Structure formats: structure tokens, C-alpha cells
């Protein structure tokens, strides 16, 4: 839409059929105009809807027509009002409270807690038919839950609040494999229970230890407490979307405040990621401009050098914060990542290649 369309808030990346519009080339405007009614009624495939939205963005005159049709469609829908069940109100308010009601902690603590609350709702809504469905990280949905338990129980272990003492593996894949094996013949509720106990232990610790400067040993690194919490929040987001895709639901980005925490961490650690991933470019300066919720501007030396924020960069890369995070989370193929680039194009590839290093935290 056109203006103020909540559909823009949800990503449309997923297993949706391709439309027959050639997005890569010019499309007759008349063809797109004919789609406005279908667009207003949500009667388009994802690709067609995207094409129409791009068309309306450059045709404000027709955007007004589209607005009129959308609002008319909503009037039509409004004739079907039904008394909502009482459980709906209670459920909405309880979950809202869990996801954002407790704002007593710092931003990193709140991001971890809120993202965990959303993920819990998604995990608990898994259908048995979903358990064996594959997710993007190679695990089935049920085994992904075991992975969550493995990860959060490792954090709990590191902060001396061990929940699963019999599992000693600390390497991510090995620990996940151990959890998958351990819980293979157990009801999924057992896995969920271990995961929730672990996450609760971490949350309790995070609210007791609010000193951002404190460090914990995580995956072989001594990391600031806040970095670990935000990295966990990011993983919660990515895996929630993995499970939502299994359920056939659209992906959902987190609230803006959480996005800011994630992008701040992702971009502030990118110079280090360039070094550790073998993608550093000493002497070169990059500026990354992220737009939309969670956006900001980061300027840094690609060899780890300290630079002034107003320095003239060798390359400026502009993209949405959402797309950058999806690249970092390896949920957007770099080949489909199309940032605007000004300057040395050869510096884009190492930047994009280093982005996912953040997700391994």
C-alpha cells in the first residue's frame, strides 16, 4: 500500500509460489492497474503484491485509488463482526505483558526476555505434523527445539546455573547433536521444559547482573554480558521465523527497540568478524547505512583500524536493517541481497561474507 499498510511490516520471504510478473524487467502499467482490485482484496501472490506495491510507490495517483479500494474492502469485512471468545482477550493481554510488560531491565535483558516469550508461544503452537518438517538450518522443527535447549542451557552452564549437568559438550553442533540424541524418544514437552528452565535461569541471572561490562566465556570468547544476551535474542528471532515458516506463517521482525540492539551488535562487531573470517581489507573504510526499523550508520576500517565517523569511505553500502539481519542470520541468500552501493564494488563481497560471523556468537 500504499500508505500505512501493515502488510509491509511482515516479510514475505517464504515458500510462496512465484507470480508470473517479470520483476526483473518492465511490466506494462496497464497490467498492474488491473491488479488493484485483486490487491485490495489480498487476492495476489506474494510476487504480484510486491510488484503492485513497487508500482504504487511511483504512481501516487493510483496509490490513492488503491487506498480507496483497500478501505472499501475493509468496510466489506467489517460487516462480519462476531463476538470474540473471552479467551482471546485474556490471551492477548497476557502475551502482551510477557513480551513487553516487564521493562525493568536494560535493553539487552529486555530483548532476550521478549524474544524468548515470542519464541515460546511459537514453539508451544507447533503441531505434531510439524515436528519432522525441515528448517533452514538443516534440523527438523523438533530438533530445532532441542537446539534451542542446547544453546540456552549452555549459557546457563557458563553463568553457573547449570540445568543439564550430564551434557558437557560446549561446541554448538556437538551439543545440539547430544540434545537431539538425548531427547529423541521423549515427548517434545520434555525438550521444551528443559529449554524454558534454561532460558528462565539466564533471564533471572540477567536481571541480577545488570552490569553491562561484566563478561562471560561464550564459544571460546570472553564477551560482554550484553553481547551474549543480544546474540541470544537474535537467535530467538531467527529460529522463531524458522518455526513460523514450518507452520506456514509469515516471518515477523522484532520490535524496533530490539532491532536496534541486534543491528548495533551486528555492525559493531563487523570489523572483528572481517578479521576472523579472513575478509579484512586493511586500509579500506566502509560505511554501512541501514534503513528502516533498527537502522543506523556505521563507519569503520575494514582492517580493524579506528576511523573518524565523518571520514570519506571507500565504499558505502545501503540496505534495510531487516535485510542485513537476515543476511547475518543466513536466512537471506547473499545472491538475493541487493544493497545500494557507492564506491568500490569489490569491497561488498567481503562485507557480506563477514556478516554471518555475528550469528555464530
Amino acid at each position, binding site marked *: 500500500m500504499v500508505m500505512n499498510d501493515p502488510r509491509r511490516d511482515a516479510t514475505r520471504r517464504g515458500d510462496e509460489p512465484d507470480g508470473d510478473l517479470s520483476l526483473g524487467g518492465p511490466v506494462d502499467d496497464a497490467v498492474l492497474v488491473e491488479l488493484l482490485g485483486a490487491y485490495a482484496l489480498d487476492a495476489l501472490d506474494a510476487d504480484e503484491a510486491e510488484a503492485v506495491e513497487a508500482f504504487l510507490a511511483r504512481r501516487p495517483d493510483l496509490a490513492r485509488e488503491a487506498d480507496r*479500494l483497500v478501505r472499501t474492502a475493509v468496510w466489506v469485512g467489517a*460487516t462480519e463482526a462476531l463476538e470474540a471468545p473471552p479467551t482471546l482477550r485474556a490471551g492477548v493481554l497476557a502475551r502482551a505483558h510477557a513480551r513487553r510488560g516487564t521493562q525493568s531491565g536494560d535493553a539487552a535483558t529486555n530483548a532476550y526476555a521478549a524474544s524468548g516469550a515470542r519464541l515460546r508461544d511459537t514453539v508451544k503452537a507447533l503441531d505434531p505434523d510439524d515436528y519432522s518438517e525441515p528448517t533452514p538450518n538443516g534440523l527438523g522443527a523438533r530438533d530445532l527445539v532441542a537446539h534451542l535447549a542446547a544453546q540456552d542451557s549452555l549459557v546457563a552452564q557458563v553463568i553457573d546455573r547449570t540445568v543439564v549437568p550430564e551434557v558437557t559438550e560446549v561446541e554448538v553442533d556437538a551439543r545440539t547433536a547430544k540434545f537431539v540424541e538425548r531427547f529423541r524418544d521423549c515427548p517434545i514437552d520434555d525438550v521444551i521444559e528443559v529449554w524454558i528452565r534454561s532460558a528462565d535461569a539466564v533471564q533471572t541471572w540477567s536481571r541480577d547482573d545488570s552490569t553491562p561490562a561484566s563478561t562471560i566465556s561464550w564459544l571460546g570468547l570472553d564477551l560482554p554480558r550484553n553481547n551474549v544476551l543480544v546474540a541470544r535474542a537474535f537467535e530467538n528471532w531467527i529460529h522463531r521465523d524458522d518455526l513460523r515458516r514450518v507452520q506456514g506463517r509469515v516471518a515477523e521482525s522484532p520490535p524496533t527497540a530490539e532491532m536496534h540492539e541486534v543491528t548495533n551488535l551486528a555492525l559493531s562487531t563487523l570489523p572483528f568478524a572481517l578479521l576472523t573470517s579472513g575478509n579484512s581489507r586493511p586500509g579500506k573504510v566502509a560505511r554501512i547505512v541501514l534503513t528502516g526499523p533498527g537502522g543506523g550508520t556505521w563507519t569503520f576500517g575494514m582492517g580493524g583500524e579506528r576511523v573518524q565517523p565523518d571520514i570519506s569511505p571507500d565504499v558505502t553500502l545501503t540496505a534495510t536493517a531487516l535485510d542485513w539481519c537476515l543476511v547475518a542470520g543466513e536466512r537471506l541468500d547473499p545472491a538475493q541481497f541487493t544493497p545500494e552501493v557507492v564506491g568500490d564494488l569489490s569491497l561488498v563481497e567481503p562485507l557480506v561474507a563477514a556478516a554471518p560471523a555475528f550469528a555464530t556468537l
Partner: protein
Amino acid sequence: MIRDDGRRRRGDVAAAVADPSTSGIRTPGGQIPGRQTRPGGAFSGEWEAEVRARLVAGNEQALAEVYDQFASFVFGLAQRVIGDPRAAEDVSQEVFLHLWEHPEGFDPARGSLRTWLGTLSHRRAVDYVRREEARRRRTQREAGQRPTGVPDVAEMATAMITAERVRAALDALPAQQRRCIQLAYFGGKTYREVAETLGIPEGTAKSRLRLGLHRVAEILEAQGLDPWS
């Protein structure tokens, strides 16, 4: 919060369709009888801007107020499309939680909260229907049937008139256009699927959807119902 003779409205067609600017039962000052509205009117941009600001600030009472105003609209629309009360409840919950977590996505200067919630509710309901089709577990139902559920009949006369006007506008359409709109909007079908269901060319389906919606808008505008609200 709109009240009726002291009873608290838990959202109803009144909230869904009420437009104080429409003709109908009026009292001096333009207020709907029996209602106590917030300054500027419960559905005014002023109220919606205020509630948005409160949502951004994390005010749970603001969410409760929005819920109470629009729950039956959101749920009714979801139920109408999905045909499964439990799934409609899940979708409705998602809609309100999305507003809770992304209140900045709603801009009162660009449209009403009803339109925003209705658009999101319909989109999520259609997504549900399509994924269930893909998973072959959807309960059979046909667009055009009235869903089971408890109609919220305890609504103000003005709101009933408005709802009936919208239904009458749909009924005034040529049957072919109305059928296309029903299949698309309440059946969750793409225009291609509408064309296939009706055995018509895709271009005809697209045209009927667009022309039909325009006709409904014209009818409602001629009656003073502002589709821009």
C-alpha cells in the same frame, strides 16, 4: 471507550463500521445516543493518535482499549475467512500482538486504525487459509456461507444501518462481480483461483474484482459513508 447505557462494549459491529459522519440516528452535537465518547470521538484521529502514543510507550491499558473496540471486527473477519473459530482466535491474537509490538507501523495521519487492523487481519487470515490448502488440512467451507458463532446483535442502530448499507451495496452488484469478491475476500482465493473456480478468464476475474470494489465504494460514498475513514 464507547459505552451503551453503562454496559461496557466488548467491540462490536459498531466499532467495526461506526462512522459518526454518516446519516442515521443523531443527537444534537452529533453524538450517537447512549454513547460516551472520548474528546474528539472514540474513533477520531485524535483518539487514535493518543492510543498509538500510549502503545508506543508500552501502555497495556491502551492495548486493552483497542482490543475492546475492535476485537469482534478482527475476530469476525478472521472467522469469516477461515471458518474455524480456534484458528480465527489465533490469527486475531497475532493481529493485536503485532500492533502491540509494532505500534509505529500505524500512522493515524494516513488512515484509520480500523482499516489498519482490518487489512492486517484479512491478510493473516488469507495466509492461514492458503497454507492450510497447501497442507491439505483445511476444513471445507464455501465462501458465502455465514459462519457459525455468536453474532454480536447488541449494537447501536446506527452501526446496524451502516452494516446493512455495506451488505446492500454488495447485493447491488452484478452477481458475477459479487461472487468474485466473495471468493477472493472471504474465500482467500487469488484472482487466478477465482477465475479457475468460476471458469472465467483471469483478466475477467481481475476486472470484476476492481470494478466491483469501485462500485461498492461509489454506492457507499453516495450514501455518505466515507471509505476514507
